[in-house]
């Protein structure tokens, strides 16, 4: 079983990477396998979660959980033109519960606390002993003000021609570009980490011979597919 899974995972990894050079039936095969497996996995997991969280308590006498099954089934009425209005009730419950839970805490965690965390005093304790931190805090304050000014003072208006505001807006563009650049760099780092992990797997002593065989096979398909397709069309 381990050997089979080793062959499958190695093959699917290399088939997927082959897209760098050209889209081939091998890549499409791997893509379809991934989609199918992900869908199957999701369904199995949903059934297991329903069984563990809803069905087991019902069997233990907690009949209130039947409500969640009824509400869940009501969602499927969306496929019927006549009864689709019924699906609005579970949707409303899900949305209202989510909004209520979030609204209570989001103001504190993502609004008030963020404001107090942003407007720091760079010369107060405990920052006096750390010039780096003081500089960071000044930067945070300056960047937040510039970026806010960029969005607040956008659109048409006579103040648009104010020289100081133009400078602030120009600085804000640079600050935002730095932020977007850092975000993009972080994405690249993530992808490299993923690639390193897969390479480690492919070059492990167990999978190295399999990797070599599948790389050769994929290379042959990449090189030979187009001439074969041409020959097929001619025939």
């Amino acid at each position: 079983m381990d050997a089979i899974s080793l062959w499958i995972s190695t093959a699917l990894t290399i088939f997927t990477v082959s897209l760098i050079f050209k889209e081939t039936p091998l890549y499409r095969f791997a893509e379809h396998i991934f989609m199918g497996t992900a869908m199957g996995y999701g369904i199995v997991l949903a059934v297991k979660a329903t069984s563990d969280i809803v069905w087991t308590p019902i069997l233990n006498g907690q009949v209130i959980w039947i409500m969640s099954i009824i509400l869940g089934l009501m969602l499927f009425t969306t496929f019927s033109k006549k009864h689709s209005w019924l699906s609005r009730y579970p949707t409303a419950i899900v949305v209202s519960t989510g909004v209520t839970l979030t609204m209570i805490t989001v103001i504190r965690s993502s609004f008030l606390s963020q404001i107090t965390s942003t407007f720091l005093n760079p010369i107060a304790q405990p920052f006096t002993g750390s010039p780096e931190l003081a500089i960071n805090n000044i930067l945070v304050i300056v960047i937040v003000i510039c970026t806010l000014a960029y969005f607040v003072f956008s659109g048409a208006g006579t103040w648009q021609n104010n020289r100081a505001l133009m400078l602030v807006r120009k600085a804000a563009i640079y600050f935002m570009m730095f932020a977007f650049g850092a975000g993009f760099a972080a994405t690249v780092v993530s992808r490299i980490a993923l690639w390193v992990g897969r390479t480690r797997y492919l070059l492990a002593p167990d999978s190295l011979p399999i990797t070599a065989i599948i790389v050769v096979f994929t290379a042959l398909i990449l090189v030979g597919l187009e001439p074969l397709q041409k020959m097929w069309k001619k025939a």
Partner: protein
Amino acid sequence: MDLTERIEHYGMPALYLLLAIGIAIPILHPIGLPMVVGEDTKTFYALVDSLKPRAIVHYGIDPEIGGFEELRSRMIAIGAHLFAKDARIVFAGFDPNAPEIYKLLINDIGVPKGKEYGVDYVFLGYIPGREIGIASYAKDVHALLSVDYFGTPLQNLPLMNDVKTIRDFSLVISFSSHELPINYIQQVYVPYHARVAVVVIGVMAPALKPYYPDQIVGFLSTPRQGAEYELLLHRPGIGVADFDAQTIAHAILLIFIVAGNLIVLKRRHSKRGA
């Protein structure tokens, strides 16, 4: 075809080829590049190290499978550290990939001899509902779940008899590749003031960093920190092994970024000249 056109034409395949070689060589023959342990890693290490024996820790397996590889070294190192500190670990995930990742992870961490399932660690499986699931879990674990992932009733697991709400956890850690840690902050830190530590992939760092250190007590966001944690733990693993490959890959990318910008500048210059 002049040099810049040649670079432009062959740049992309050359980049992939160089990256593949640059990553493969250090994996086959590690170089051992020097590494300095950062402040965030030291803080996180101290946080786990300060746990009292038998403290209960929530270990949130919340990444998608695509983000797991980047988090893997940190998840293994922190898991091993928790076991070494004799902490009791409640593994659970609010992302559907949690069960599959748990199987890989528990194998990678290697449960120490003498540690018993149900007494020293449990796995509650995937808890659906994301933020609503986290809120329910924080309020009353037993009201939300009656069995663990393997179908064992929670009352038969000694560890779970000591857990009722999130207040019973000494530390709540979320390993994630998306915005779930923000839900933890909103549903675990704000209402209960539980100590939340977050380990995320690099892409999520800008979204989570503003919460540190005011609302979260520990924060790791780069794969390099996995290697740093392994060094602090004196347990070199895949983090240290991958560090060389990642560094070389980043160096290659930097060279290509500089080359690409030089080509653009040269082209702009020649257009102006024309």
